[in-house]
């Protein structure tokens, strides 16, 4: 057994076509970015993506901001003497001061603590719903496309029907009926429940070209079950699209959350989110502008950074992008 392995090692390692006796130096093909060879230096796909991502300054900048924001949301309350749910009734609508770094709201809540809490809530809602949306839409989109025929027709018809539903209104109704503390959870569920439909359509379109590829047909011809084909072949090959959509989906989910909360239909006191803060701030924009300014600055920073990351990712993953640099 080991003998055979040793023998074939020589053959296979060195070359494409067995050529006994002639110890040949191994060469590779340029276009495929590498070959099987002994001194082959393998660049894994992840390192490649990271390298390409890092080559883009704006993407790195976005990443840094995003990480700072996440750290801020996680650890920001550790350094503040105030908690978001303990208002300081001695300082109502106060401008930023040594005591209250970013001022207080009309109700006396510390703005800094409120923003930390609000950012955390917004991020949580955004990230969870975006990931869920991608999982659901990837599975449903690929399934609809994979089975073709009747399944595709009925599936597309259902998707079209679902698109007609006034999702904003329904989400608002779901969240309204929930209690104060679990509001964010219902909001996440609501955004997810109506957010996947559009993406599923997009993914179905992408799968349509994928399903014609030989390796999908090869799997069918080997007798691989449909579910396995979808999970092992179709979804991973949409990976780059899914990752980009997930990242950019965070922005749209945060925006949706903010919009709903701003209208008073999202997260309610005592819990808070960026949208809720904005709503509170807009009523006193002339008398206490900091209540509006600081949360909006954070919101803009958040969406801006995620957008930059999304752009960078798209370029890093896209094999046709210019991230390879320039020849000398």
């Amino acid at each position, binding site marked *: 057994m080991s003998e055979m392995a040793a023998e*074939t090692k020589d053959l*296979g390692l060195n*070359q494409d*076509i067995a050529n006994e006796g002639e110890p040949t130096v*191994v060469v590779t093909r340029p276009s495929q970015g590498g070959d099987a060879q002994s001194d082959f230096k393998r660049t894994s796909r992840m390192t490649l993506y990271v390298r390409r991502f890092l080559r883009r300054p704006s993407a790195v900048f976005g990443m840094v901001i995003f990480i700072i924001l996440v750290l801020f949301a996680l650890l920001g309350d550790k350094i503040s003497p105030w908690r978001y749910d303990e208002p300081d009734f001695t300082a109502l609508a106060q401008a930023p001061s040594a005591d209250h770094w970013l001022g207080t709201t009309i109700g006396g809540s510390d703005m800094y603590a409120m923003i930390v809490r609000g950012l955390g809530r917004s991020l949580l809602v955004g990230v969870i719903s975006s990931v869920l949306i991608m999982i659901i839409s990837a599975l449903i989109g690929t399934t609809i496309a994979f089975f073709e025929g009747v399944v595709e027709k009925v599936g597309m018809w259902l998707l079209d029907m679902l698109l007609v539903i006034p999702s904003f209104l329904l989400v608002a109704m779901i969240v309204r009926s929930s209690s104060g503390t679990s509001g964010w959870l219902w909001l996440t569920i609501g955004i997810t429940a109506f957010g996947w439909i559009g993406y599923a359509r997009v993914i179905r379109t992408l799968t349509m070209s994928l399903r014609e590829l030989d390796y999908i047909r090869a*799997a069918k*011809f080997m007798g691989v079950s449909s579910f396995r084909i979808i999970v092992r072949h179709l979804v991973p090959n949409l990976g780059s699209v899914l990752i980009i959509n997930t990242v950019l989906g965070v922005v749209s989910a945060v925006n949706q959350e903010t919009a709903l909360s701003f209208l008073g239909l999202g997260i309610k006191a005592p819990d808070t989110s960026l949208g809720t803060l904005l709503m509170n701030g807009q009523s006193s924009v002339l008398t206490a502008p900091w209540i509006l300014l600081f949360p909006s600055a954070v919101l803009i920073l958040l969406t801006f950074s995620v957008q930059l990351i999304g752009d960078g990712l798209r370029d890093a993953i896209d094999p046709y992008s210019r991230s390879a640099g320039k*020849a000398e």
Partner: protein
Amino acid sequence: MTDTTMNNTTTAEDKPILEVRDLRVNFASEAGTVRAVRGVNFDLYRGKTLGIVGESGSGKSVTSMAIMGLLDKNAHVEGSIRFRGDELLTKTDKEMSVLRGDRIAMVFQDPLSALTPVFSIGQQLEEALVIHNPKMTKEQIAKRSIELLKLVGIPNAEERLKAYPHQFSGGMRQRVVIAMAIANNPDVIICDEPTTALDVTIQAQVLEVLQRAQQETGAAVIFITHDLGVIAGIADDIIVMYAGRPVEKADVDTVFSQPVMPYTMGLLGAVPRPDRAKSSRLVPIPGAPMNLVNMPKGCPFAPRCPLATDVCRQSEPDLLPVEGREGQLAACHRVREIVGKGLTFRDIYSVGESVTSKFAGIPREDRQVVLDVKHLKKTFPLTAGGFLRRKVGEVHAVDDVTLDVREGETVALVGESGSGKSTTLLEIMEFKQPESGEISVLGQRVEKRMSRETRRQLHSKVQYIFQDPMSSLDPRLPIYDILAEPLKVQKMSKEQINDRIRDLMALVELNPDQVDRFPTQFSGGQRQRIAIARALAVNPKLVLLDEPVSALDVSIQAGVINLLEDLQNKLGVAYLFVAHNLSVIRHISNRIAVMYLGRIVEIGSNHDVFETPLHPYTEALLSAVPVPDPKIERTRQRIVLQGELPSPSESFSGCPFASRCPKFSTLSKEQQARCLGEAPVLEVKSGSADHLAACHFA
């Protein structure tokens, strides 16, 4: 503008129209700088055809793109390209646009993607014309378009102008692309593998059209191809490229009769000959093409060259004139020796031993029938647009096909695209009850209701190999998982799978340690080996192969063909082989079935079909195959079939081939009436009882 160029042409006949000097192109890549072209020199004269031959990655296409100024932005170009004395490399994209399509035109490989699907042929031709002649009137454009389409041999040109690309077949589309290329009477036409995607019969037509177009425009042609057969017939001079450099340059006869560079010899020796019966194994060039990043010093071919010495590994030879041969240049340190001793391909490359077949000596009749197809039919409905899709007709993709495949033999299905050969394969592989007729695999009839278990067993007996190993392997899975997939379907245990994968890798001559790599890390030939390993994983009795070597480089192709042969002999597996390359078929198959419009028109042993073809279609098909020998190419009489396959939606009361049949016109009125009125059946015609043809007058 047009006037002045017209005047120039008369004075510039003897001067080269295009001069390329020391052209170098580098690309940036993650691995480092790719030196795609490293010093190309040539002169191009009006009315002459320069052939550039080389494998993928040899820099031939990059050279042509550099001339067109169509290289990617991350390319760095050095050297000089002068068109009529004008330096092209310093021109801006805008200045190049004036030349492109007007003075220098290009015919691309893939006619499917060279035309925009949303515009009609007429609109696209109009675009090609108007961009360089803004003053043309509607009538002039229409007239010129029709003229062009007629020139490239498209029937009903007036009507076809309104048609969209998808309404044309591949060959027709390529004709349209050629029409667009010659629309403005260019001085240089660059053809980048223009016939690679086409059938042999269509290839013969398109080559003829190209030659006609060249005569009509007097243009110089750069013909890029990997097919030595094609280039033998069309080129005047040939440049053989390897690793971005020309390694041999001479006129076409010299290259084919007295090649000097070992690589050229290898290329010529690795292709099976369509005009000769199989005499021995093919000889692959060992190794794979060069990595153009971090090239080691020395001759780039040295690692694959059996003649390489230390000098070859130390310094790269220059392209120098070969002593005693006029006009021949070669880049090899050992030229003197090769010329002096008169070394040929057989002296340089060693021929391996083939494995004797498991079934050698057992006559065909005594072998078990692996696949039995009887009267198989497959139709696709044709629907008309509108809200409710109604059926307006049907396409007879496969029409009454009967054939059997026995243990250990290779049956080849031959025919133009659209003849139903791939559909036949797919129909067998689907394991669904056919519309009509029956399919049995090892005695098991394929029926509508089969248990999961029966289906699984069928999957273990029949496997499929695709044409393109780049797309048939999931790029996101490591080789181990790819090979494990069919085994998992057969419910094998982890240990069994592990052992089997190690054996498989050895079987296809790959290193078992490489199973953790991804498909993109292997070369084309290696990937096809992996695909073969995957197909053989479950020990099938029958493998269906859809053009398994046509996507591979010539030097790699030979290795894969040898492997397929050895595996068949070792394992006794039967192949049902679909290919358009008749040379390969002649080499590998035992029996041949020629298909036309979904029907088998001739079936018989390899020898019978190639030596004494009965059906006129087979004759035409065989004569269309280009032979890699310029002398034969120049003298032989080729039967060029007129027209293309009739639409498969047509129904014929008589012989479907009658409309294109060269024999038909030689028949008397009564005989012609029989051809048109009575469908011929497949029957024994001459001596051999195993040789059948469907022709009234064969």
